[in-house]
């Protein structure tokens, strides 16, 4: 488990990125809970942390590819992203990196 940030560090309904063990991770605070995905869109490298977040999905800001927040599955075609586990302990947010490096759709 890696400490990522405090709960207040991510605005409601948005995402923010950080680097964990050399890997760029986007943490999302959606109405349905906290999620973490690899931050780099496999399509053209867009920053997913800057995407629009809805209850269960995030939309890449560059070309509107959509990914499931819980699984990282691609919802609008193409390759998916790796999802990571998030745990909230009190006011603190932790991330457990998944072992997979890349994920097929």
């Amino acid at each position, binding site marked *: *488990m*890696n*400490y*990522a*940030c*405090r709960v*207040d*560090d*991510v*605005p*409601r*309904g*948005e995402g*923010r*990125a*950080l*680097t*964990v063990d050399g890997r760029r991770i986007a*943490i999302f605070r959606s*109405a349905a809970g906290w999620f973490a995905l690899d931050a780099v869109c496999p399509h*053209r*490298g*867009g*920053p997913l*942390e*800057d*995407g*629009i*977040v*809805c*209850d*269960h*999905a*995030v*939309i890449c*800001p*560059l*070309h*509107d590819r*959509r990914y499931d927040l*819980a*699984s*990282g599955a691609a*919802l*609008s075609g193409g390759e998916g992203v*790796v*999802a*990571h*586990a998030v745990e909230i302990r009190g006011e*603190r947010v*932790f991330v*457990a*990196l*998944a*072992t*997979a490096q890349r*994920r097929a759709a």
Partner: protein
Amino acid sequence: MRGMSGAIVIVGGGIAGQAVCEAVRERDRDVAITLVCAEPCAPYDRVRLSEILVSGEDPQTLQLRPPEWYDDHDVTLLVGRMVTWVDHERGVLGLDDTDELHFGRLVLATGSQPLMPPIPGIDLAGVHPFRGPADCDAIRGAALAGDARRAAVIGGGLLGLEAARGIAAQGCAVTVVHLLDRLMERQLDAGASALLAPALTGLDIDVEFDRNTQQIIGPDRAHGLRFTDGSELQADLVVVSIGIRPETTLARTMGIVCDRGIIVDDAMRTSIPSVVAVGECAQHRGIVYGLVAPIHDQARVAAQTLLSQDAAYLGSVMSAKLKVAGIDLVCAGQAVGEYEAVVTDAATGVYRKLTVSGGRIVGTVLLGDTRGSEALVAAVRAGDLVDDPLQALADASLAGPADLPDSAQICDCNGVCKGALVAAVTEGGCATPREVMAVTRAGTGCGSCRPAVVEIVAAATGGLSDEPAYLCPCRKQTREQLAARIRADGLQSVSEVANACGTGRECGTCKPALAYLVSEVCANTHREERDARFINDRVHANIQRDGTFSVVPRMYGGVCTPDELRRIADVADKYEVPLVKVTGGQRLDLLGVRKQDLPAIWRDLDMPSGHAYAKAVRTVKTCVGTDFCRFGLGDAIGLGIEMEKLWEGLHTPHKVKSGVSGCPRNCAEATVKDIGCVAVEGGWQVRAGGAAGGNVREADIIATVATRAEALRVATTFLQYYRENADYKERTYDFIPRVGLEHVREVVLGEQSGAALRERLRIAKAAVKDPWLERDDPYHPRQFEDLDGVAGDSREPTLVGPPAEGRA
């Protein structure tokens, strides 16, 4: 240069080359692709050349894909380069005899050349083929300039007739001379052809049959045609359109077997198995296809062959639509057969025919009344069995595109079937015809299928054709429904609307539209929730392809002071801004800025936001008007600055780019702006709905008024009308045609309705703040910051927990 293992090189940047390129990329996102175009431009849609001939639009608008498409899809595009030799054994080819390019797999899409008859005078000035944008320019120029008092088109085929129409549209008398006794003999039977000729005459196009041109009369330039029977026709502009010759020169030098075209098998392979050929250069089962739809079919098969997938091309049913305004003509398959059912009305020029062989529909010709053409062409392609062809014709005229099978091809230019359109709605989440056209590319070629696309999308979205698009497709809520709910319940924010109506939560794509709607209905006194905004509107800068941002400070009317210029230069130095560029809207753009630097840059600039990142009022481009220009009739800079200050900070359904020109020379290009004012003798023209993008559209004139104050008032009133009534992401040039120019004028120029609009704009404007002031008052401490460094904070040690567990 890329590695040579398996790299695909496509020789020829026409529709065929582009189609192969796209078909390969759809199936394999990694293989290296290079597209070599001999013409000095990226691939364009040759089919629409005749439109350009009529309208005089810039041939740029024919581009099949925008320049960035090639980067986005990792396609190396070489333009203006000739492939001069190929050594397929070494996998090397020569570019202009100067460079070499390695390949693993090769595609020949070299197209064709116009056939020019070897008759005396064919090389004279004033004689043109009709093939590329340059021919188009030359023909249109000659017809328009009055150099030509009479024009002749040799060849009464599809292309020849379209060329004749283009010439007639310039007001030049034109005669089509045809070798045979009927027009478009490859597609039409005698009956349809007999009705086509008078229809052309009605468009000021004369037709002469049985004319074999023996010579073009010179000597200095073309003056006319002499025929084998000794008769002559006066003409100083001669267009030759008698057919095409497949371009096989390169293939022949490679030792590939050619007949009329390059001979290919069902896998589109040439006699060298690692080389495929596609399009008008290829000859499949004895046929050279010169139409778009078969080329797309061939390209798909060729792509699969290149990727070692099994696929076979079994030939195509020929179909054609004549793109001549005023004449509706669709034909497919064989014009004659064992049995023919014909309905005709010579008085109205209607001719509808089905051709049947072996009990199956094998052809159709529809002239003057093309209702049901999609269904009938689909039946020809499928070879449907038919008992009563007359009944089938009658049924088709009642059937709409919505009744078609999924396999029916709707867009011939881009090879899109009805099933793909429906899937874009049911699976792709598209809600409007515009979205479906953007995703599938249907309707983006010649455009003749657009009405069918609209109808199919309307049926697929479960609405009637005239039902408005859903703002939130997940919850099937329209803009009007949501606006009414917001007003009735006094909703103040996107989350309140979500709680009330369930919108914006499932797919999220409508959140920015909801954010705009709430702000507009509440006249900017809503509760702002930034998570509903696109990233650009969270950080007030425009996200770039690499995740950096661009910064454009406000310069009213494009005017700035030396101090402002110095500050911009200092900022560019201090923050190591990679690129400073003047934009098309006369502003300075700082590109490649890091998100976390934005607040400090705004502080140093000390200029208001230019809103270049938002769906909002952007720039007002101006010419120097009466201040300095010796032609100026009106104070363009003055009006431009007034407009910009009055409208600054107002968000809009889509971006609004404006311009003010001080005289009809129109240096500020105001006639292709969303809102444009042009000073004319005695006043100002106020225009709206112009476009200079993919499709150029001349802005409609809302009104011509006497004073600058009135011009500002009319333009402002229109702006508010657009803010209140357009769908989200609907530009003014789509909005005005949708609601109708007359209606727009009525509301905008109406005394009471106009005053009410201006009052609501005044209230909305009163609540506007410069978003760049958030540099000192961010909506969240991390508005511009990611989380890097947070975990390194000594107050929060990194914990060692249970082993990391993947959930993927």
